[in-house]
């Protein structure tokens, strides 16, 4: 099968097949064409060449409606939810459309939506509007929507990126149930542990081609092997060891409180330190990060920068003054100007400093900066003049980093820096972050729900529960299992 966008070849002779009751994982680096293949199957994109057969029937064109009629359900990477509708309406949207009835029964919709929500054990108000939900909740709604229909093939495009371990587990529970019912499941993820845990068979993609196909029952692949197939490179994981060079914290917060989000937060960050903050959904870590960047002023507390009290940040400018950089959670809506060029995006943070007193830009210095920034990381498929939206997820994230590093920050706050980023790019990003901390003495705060990531990247970790710091330890003093348990302990109401 072949597919191209304006000369960018996204699928280049891809072969893929799946049988009843099979759970097949699809892995590959960012931008290798996983989502594109899914969209071809579901009829969102037409394909240029090749064959597509579903249930033995060959299709030259398939529409989304046709694909749904064939029993294919997709959980899209970007959710494809309707912000202006309630959770119940969203969950039942596909079946409403498919029913072709003229009138709708609002009460039945609500009832069936509740059933689905119960089935995967989540409590949400079905009358709430989706626009008010956070990413994880939206992901759950998208999953519910797919489960609400009867399907033969369920395609999940990175369903776990926004979910916590607990929720992932219950998702896997459901996958197993579906499998027992004979439903085929395509599972796309960058989290290889998950992949290896759930799948029966695996397809590894590279540059729009399948490079490996096989059942895990036939041959057990190791994580390293998968990575090798994906990237064509060997991959090693190193741990960050930190030794303090100075005892004055770059930033220290005391009794930091924001009503409804977090309270009584105390922590400090030394130069060269990488501190991880983790916790379950809704524990307030995003709010904490945003608050440290001045996006949501805290209600009370003290912020010390290099030992001096600077007061609570009221605006982003306050944080910028103290050379804090913030890489937001959602790069698409918060991190990048998708329509603007890669070059412009890379200097958007520092553009002001290239202006003279009249506000005129020094264009030569500016384009030097663009060159410097873009050459500091390998961004594949990049043309500086093209809009950023032409890049894939991991590469976009690198542009966000480049943008912030241009301003030479002292403190770097990374909010889920590797969500939806593949292993190759992930290790690139980790390497860069470690380098920054080690060589330039930058203090880094990493917010992540990926405990493996925390273990690899950080030298210290804070676990948050219900808006408070529940547990704080050096990475060396803890183990992965213990950290996971401490999250779970919260769930069970212990500790």
């Amino acid at each position, binding site marked *: 099968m072949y597919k191209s966008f304006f000369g960018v070849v996204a699928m280049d002779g891809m072969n893929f097949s799946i049988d009843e009751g099979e759970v097949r994982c699809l892995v590959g680096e960012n931008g290798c064409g996983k989502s594109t293949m899914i969209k071809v199957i579901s009829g969102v994109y037409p394909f240029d060449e090749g064959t597509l057969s579903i249930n033995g029937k060959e299709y030259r064109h398939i529409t989304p409606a046709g694909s749904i009629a064939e029993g294919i359900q997709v959980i899209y990477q970007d959710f494809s939810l309707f912000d202006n509708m309630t959770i119940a309406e969203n969950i039942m949207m596909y079946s409403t459309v498919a029913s072709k009835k003229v009138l709708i029964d609002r009460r039945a919709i609500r009832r069936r939506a509740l059933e689905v929500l119960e089935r995967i054990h989540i409590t949400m108000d079905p009358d709430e509007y989706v626009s008010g939900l956070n990413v994880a909740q939206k992901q759950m709604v998208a999953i519910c929507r797919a489960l609400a229909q009867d399907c033969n093939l369920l395609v999940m495009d990175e369903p776990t990126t926004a979910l916590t371990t607990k929720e992932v587990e219950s998702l896997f529970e459901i996958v197993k149930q579906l499998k027992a019912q004979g439903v085929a499941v395509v599972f796309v993820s960058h989290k290889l542990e998950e992949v290896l845990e759930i799948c029966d068979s695996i397809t590894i993609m590279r540059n729009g081609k399948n490079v490996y196909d096989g059942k895990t029952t036939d041959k057990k692949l190791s994580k390293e092997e998968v990575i090798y197939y994906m990237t064509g490179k060997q991959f090693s994981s190193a741990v960050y060891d930190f030794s303090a060079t100075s005892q004055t914290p770059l930033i220290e917060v005391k009794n930091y409180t924001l009503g409804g989000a977090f309270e009584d937060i105390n922590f400090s960050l030394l130069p060269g330190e990488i501190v991880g903050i983790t916790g379950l959904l809704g524990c307030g870590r995003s709010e904490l990060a945003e608050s440290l960047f001045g996006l949501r002023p805290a209600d009370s507390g003290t912020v010390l920068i290099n030992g001096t009290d600077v007061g609570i940040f009221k605006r*982003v*400018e306050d944080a910028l003054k103290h050379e804090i950089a913030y890489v937001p959670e959602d790069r698409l809506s918060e991190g990048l100007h998708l329509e*603007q060029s890669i070059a*412009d995006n890379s200097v*958007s*943070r520092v553009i002001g400093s290239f202006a003279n007193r009249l506000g005129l*830009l020094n264009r030569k210095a500016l384009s030097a900066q663009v060159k410097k920034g873009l050459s500091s990381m390998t961004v594949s498929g990049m043309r500086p003049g093209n809009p950023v939206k032409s890049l894939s997820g991991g590469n976009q994230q690198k542009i966000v980093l480049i943008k912030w590093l241009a301003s030479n920050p002292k403190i770097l706050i990374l909010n889920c820096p590797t969500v939806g980023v593949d292993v190759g790019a992930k290790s690139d990003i980790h390497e860069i972050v470690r380098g920054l901390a080690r060589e330039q003495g930058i203090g880094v705060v990493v917010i992540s729900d990926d405990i493996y990531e925390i273990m690899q990247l950080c030298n210290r970790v804070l676990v948050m529960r219900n808006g408070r710091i529940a547990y704080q330890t050096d990475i060396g003093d803890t183990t992965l299992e213990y950290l996971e348990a401490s999250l779970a302990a919260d769930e069970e109401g212990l500790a």
Partner: protein
Amino acid sequence: MKHKLHFKADRDFVRMLIVTIIIFAAMTAMRPNLFLKTANFVSMGYQLPELGLYSLAFMVVLITGQFNLSIVATGNLCCITGMMVMHQAVEKNLTGGAAWGYIFLGCLAAIAVGLVCGWINGFVVTYFNVPAMLVTMSTTAIFTGIAIIITQGKAMAGVPDELVYFGNHTLLGIPYALWLLIAVFALTAVLINRTSFGFKLKFVGSNLKASHYTGININKIRIRAYVYSGLISALCAIEILAHTNAAKADYAESYVGQAILCSVLGATSPNGGYVRMACMALSMLSLQFLSSGFTMLRLGGYFKEFAWGILLIAVLSFNFISQELRRRKSIQAVAKARVGQKS
């Protein structure tokens, strides 16, 4: 790198250039002995500044993805303020230096009013979360309402002759008013392409939230866009005073629609974030050619309106069609490349 940076832009430019040339050629062909006369160009030079300035005022805000429908209402309020000050010089029969003093004061007053009006628009749009289109629609009613109360609806006339001279004479064959437009245009072009403010305008236009998260003071930028828009309106008001020697609450109301037309034809993205000054210049010229040409063809004002509408839709559809063609071509190219590989 630079030549690639403006890949899309150059296509817009070529398209607009073709449109302008076609209109010019058509008008010339139909009325050769009238259209090509110097007098005609001078006359167009007198007409263009008002539309041009208002279009720039609209465009500046459009870059941020917002609308400013009160450009003309702001201009008229400035005009009336300026008139109230300058008219005193006429009443006192002042000439020379003293008159110039009043002119200067009047200009200052007009500019101050323009800035304030712009600021009000910007402030409300930025802090109150009401769609800009509706905010500026109601401020249009408010500004015009104030103008009506001040003037009781009547025209005010009589600024010092020193100013009127500049509204109705040429320098190097080009009307002073057009020089003003050229100056403001150049200033705006520099502002947009060569300053960090212009850069930020585009960023704010293309993604408000990301700009905020990048540390751009989005509120400040958006307010400044409106304030600059108000400033251009005020400058236009001064030009109107000089040109017509009069001020009135409803002068040039139909220029709002034309300013939108001109901005969009000039390749400014209606969704914000993209602007191309060279296209703006061509867009102004082509609208003026069309307008003057139609009067010369003795066709009523409604033909003009009709032609503008057609032009707008034709130019915009052209975008789509050329994009579609390119898409087809790229698919073919890829297919061909693959066939080549296989063999």
